[in-house]
């Protein structure tokens, strides 16, 4: 049982990571800086609970805010460029964040132990959950309360005019500008929202893995962050969730019985998924079909 609860935790946190990239992708930008924001969230939250002795929720809030501020600050210059330039610029930024934490040491004496981030050796013993009597189920529920809140907020945002504006910018910046939209402000806002969400995810990540170090926040994680929404489709937030379940639940854990083949299949199935569903697992067409199905069901029911 614990195993499933743990897996659901992982799915939850990765969904947050994917959603942070989703916000930015809506405006048509591929950002590989999300792992950097995730790292900021992880380190800030971890330091607050371990070194500062803070309770988790305020620590998460501050972590999210910190990552949001970083995202906003980096968004202004970075979003001057687009396309491949932005991909590389954000990769550079994400790597810079990782390397900052590689060089970052801030330890306090606690009895005979030294606690806190210690450069390349990482930040050990972020044990807020077990020390405060949280069971795996509690942690899972807590993570999912956060995930559902974020998903609901994004779902609602998607339906509001903000969503239409974000997508309009993503489709055609020139036309959006000419329709009176401040494109820079919209893109930076999207990046900031993405940063807030990534920070939240990072804070949770630090606490359920209990140990963080710079290597975890590299290019691979950043790639996964954008892979989730792209693989899932950008038509709504559930695409990202489905993709996380596909990757974490199916490709990683579900295919375990394949033994040595599992890892070969991992990359291969991602390629295959993109060939079969180039617009993502859930695209606008799927939604229309689903709606039709639902409507037919309603009619049949009534």
């Amino acid at each position, binding site marked *: 049982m614990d195993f499933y609860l743990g897996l659901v935790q992982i799915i939850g946190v990765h969904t947050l990571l994917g959603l942070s990239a989703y916000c930015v992708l809506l405006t048509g930008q591929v950002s590989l800086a999300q792992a950097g924001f995730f790292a900021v969230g992880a380190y800030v939250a971890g330091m607050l609970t371990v070194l500062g002795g803070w309770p988790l929720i305020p620590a998460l809030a501050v972590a999210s805010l910190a990552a949001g501020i970083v995202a906003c600050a980096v968004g202004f210059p970075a979003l001057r460029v687009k396309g491949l330039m932005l991909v590389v610029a954000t990769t550079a930024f994400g790597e810079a964040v990782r390397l900052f934490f590689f060089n970052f040491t801030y330890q306090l004496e606690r009895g005979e132990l030294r606690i806190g981030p210690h450069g390349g050796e990482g930040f050990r013993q972020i044990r807020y959950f077990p020390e405060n009597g949280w069971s795996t189920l509690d942690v899972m529920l807590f993570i999912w309360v956060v995930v559902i809140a974020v998903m609901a907020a994004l779902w609602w945002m998607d339906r*509001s*005019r*903000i969503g*239409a*504006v974000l*997508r*309009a910018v993503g*489709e*055609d910046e*020139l*036309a*959006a*500008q*000419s*329709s*009176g*939209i*401040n*494109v820079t402000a919209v893109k930076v806002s999207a990046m900031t929202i993405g940063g807030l969400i990534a920070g939240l995810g990072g804070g949770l990540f630090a606490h359920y893995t209990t140990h963080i170090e710079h290597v975890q926040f590299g290019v691979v994680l950043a790639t996964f962050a954008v892979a989730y929404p792209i693989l899932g489709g950008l038509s709504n937030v559930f695409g990202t969730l489905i993709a996380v379940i596909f990757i974490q639940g199916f490709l990683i854990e579900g295919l375990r019985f394949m033994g040595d083949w599992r890892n070969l299949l991992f990359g291969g199935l991602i390629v295959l998924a993109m060939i079969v569903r180039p617009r993502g697992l859930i695209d*606008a067409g799927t939604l229309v079909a689903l709606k039709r199905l639902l409507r037919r069901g309603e009619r049949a029911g009534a």
Partner: protein
Amino acid sequence: MLELRRLTKYFGGVRAVDGVDLTVAEGEILGLIGPNGSGKSTIINLICGLFPLTDGEVVFRGTDISTLPPHERVALGIARTFQNIRLFGQLTVWQNLWVAQKARGQGRGFLRGWLGGSRHDRVAIDKTLDFFDLGHKRDELAGNLAFGEQRRLEFARAFAAKPSLLLLDEPAAGMNAEEIDQLDARIRQLRREGVTIVLIEHHVELVMSVTDRIAVLNFGQKIAEGTPAEIQTNPLVREAYLGTQTAA
């Protein structure tokens, strides 16, 4: 209402627009014609602020807006359509207007502006759609519309920003006679509602029938200006067109 002073734009060594002076009066319909590549669309882009000026000024209602970013010019009341249609294809028809409309509503409270606006605003969008005969398509994806409908939607989207100055870049291109008649009627209706219009068009009949005044461009310079009747008899204009566009 709009005044262009020595408007100049060079692309590298090419003088796309070269010292054009032009005034648009409140409430009039100004036609902007000229052979291909004469700088008409560039002027529109400069009025909207898509490129920086090389020289000159754009003055709108007495203030110099030459350095304002495009979205702020829209907020002042300048809206446009594109020659090559640029809709938000993955949004619905209704959402296309929604995006454009609320940009002006920001003054009435930030949140309301961003989250979707009042019932009044929604009704306004529906009315606009009906006016452009798109009401029945409101939930279709804009990318799935027929060509003529897409042109109408562009027009509608520009109008949704509640502009006082509307810049139409070849709205009749690719339309059939019936559609052009409807377009003619809509432009007149808008003028009655007080919208000032600058119309770029190759379709001579439409220009001649609907405009109050016409300015003619060639090689980035203004070569003539006057009523449609005056323009038709202007020898300079004939000369400009003869070599390049006899059919027009």
